[in-house]
């Protein structure tokens, strides 16, 4: 790309673009994660409706059916036993994890480009996300 400066740019900030590969990788991470989670959620929803479709909606809406699958043990045994609720939980987890994976890939590219400040910032964001979700979330439950 040839740089023709926009009006008003001081030119005092260096241009340090991430490699094209980083853009492609993040785009692929987001698309794949979304597709996988939506497929799991669709299959899980249909299976759940086959089992419970004729029940009144009020009960399922006010009592969350996945509460038993929010721990690692609960989720693992639910998946092993083919519990539909466990697969729905898995779909939600993939949906939430997708942008977090995108942050992780950002950290990888800053690290590889030896940009210590930006790598530190992205790593902090990553740690905040993981600590927040895995520690703070269960604490307020």
């Amino acid at each position, binding site marked *: *790309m040839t*740089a*023709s*400066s*926009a*009006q*008003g*740019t*001081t030119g*005092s*900030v*260096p*241009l*340090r*673009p*991430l490699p094209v590969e980083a*853009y492609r990788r993040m*785009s*692929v991470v*987001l698309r794949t994660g*979304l597709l996988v989670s*939506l497929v799991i*959620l*669709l299959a*899980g*929803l249909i299976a*759940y*409706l086959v089992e419970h*479709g*004729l*029940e*009144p*909606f009020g009960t399922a*809406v006010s009592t*969350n*059916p*996945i509460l038993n699958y*929010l721990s690692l043990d609960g989720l693992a045994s639910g998946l092993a036993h083919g519990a539909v609720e466990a697969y729905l939980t898995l*779909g*939600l987890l993939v*949906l*939430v994890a*997708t*942008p977090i994976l*995108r*942050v992780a890939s950002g950290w990888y590219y800053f690290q590889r480009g030896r940009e210590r*400040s*930006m790598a530190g*910032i*992205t790593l*902090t*964001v990553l740690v905040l*996300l993981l600590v*927040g*979700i895995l520690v*703070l*979330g*269960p604490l*307020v*439950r």
Partner: protein
Amino acid sequence: MDLVLFAVLVVLTGIAAGLVGSLTGLGGAVVVIPVLVIAFAVPFPYAVGTGFLTILATSSTTGAAYIRDHLSDLRIGMFLEIATVPGALLGATFTVFLVHANLSNALLIALGAILLAIVPGTYARRHVELPTGVVPDARSKRLALAGEYHDLALERDVRYEAGRTRPALGVMFGAGVTSGMFGIGAGVFKVLALERYLGLPMKVSTATSNFMMGVTAAAGAGILLSAGYVNPIIGAPAALGTAAGAYIGSKVLPGLRNQTVRWLFLPVMIALALEIILRGLGLA
């Protein structure tokens, strides 16, 4: 109403919200949350949890396209996530506390008030195609918060630099808290920080705000999910519907996205916000 009918209606609501969201630039969550509360009497925290899922379902689709086209500034976006992520974690935690303290109604009133501010705010956004007179601060120089994109309309490459990072971080923290508390994208605040304080070009601001949306929503969704307020029976049909609606909106109807369509939805959005406030006050 049985669950099958409920799920079908929520999918349809999601499709409508995804379409309206992509046509107006508001995002789907601001439509889905009030409709769930008003039409289906979904408890507030479950509606918020669903809001996050609809953001996640749409931001990854549009986000991926913006990234591929190099319109999102990954560096500036990831820098600002240091403010939105703690904001969203705190906001979502605060909402869980308020819900446990039986203050859901106060949250409904606050959500209604926020919607009343956000909708006209999004519409009235003064668009500066290419801001001038941006003076980068020391942090902007140190972190190389600058970029370049090819503007198809202007038919040239445009270079830009980030200006005042401190107020931008402050507004981004506020955007994170708002997003985390109410399950909405709070894009209008993100764009405010990007356009007004950092002085980024309009297209870059929109794309970067969108790029950051998913991570903010993941923070809020993560908290509510572990707290038990993300219910897939509501969330899955809503996410599937909004993803479909946003996809259709982006493929079939790009020409429709104009001022007229936006203003047509304004009375609908104001009515939803007022109804939410009445619910919160126990008057509906």
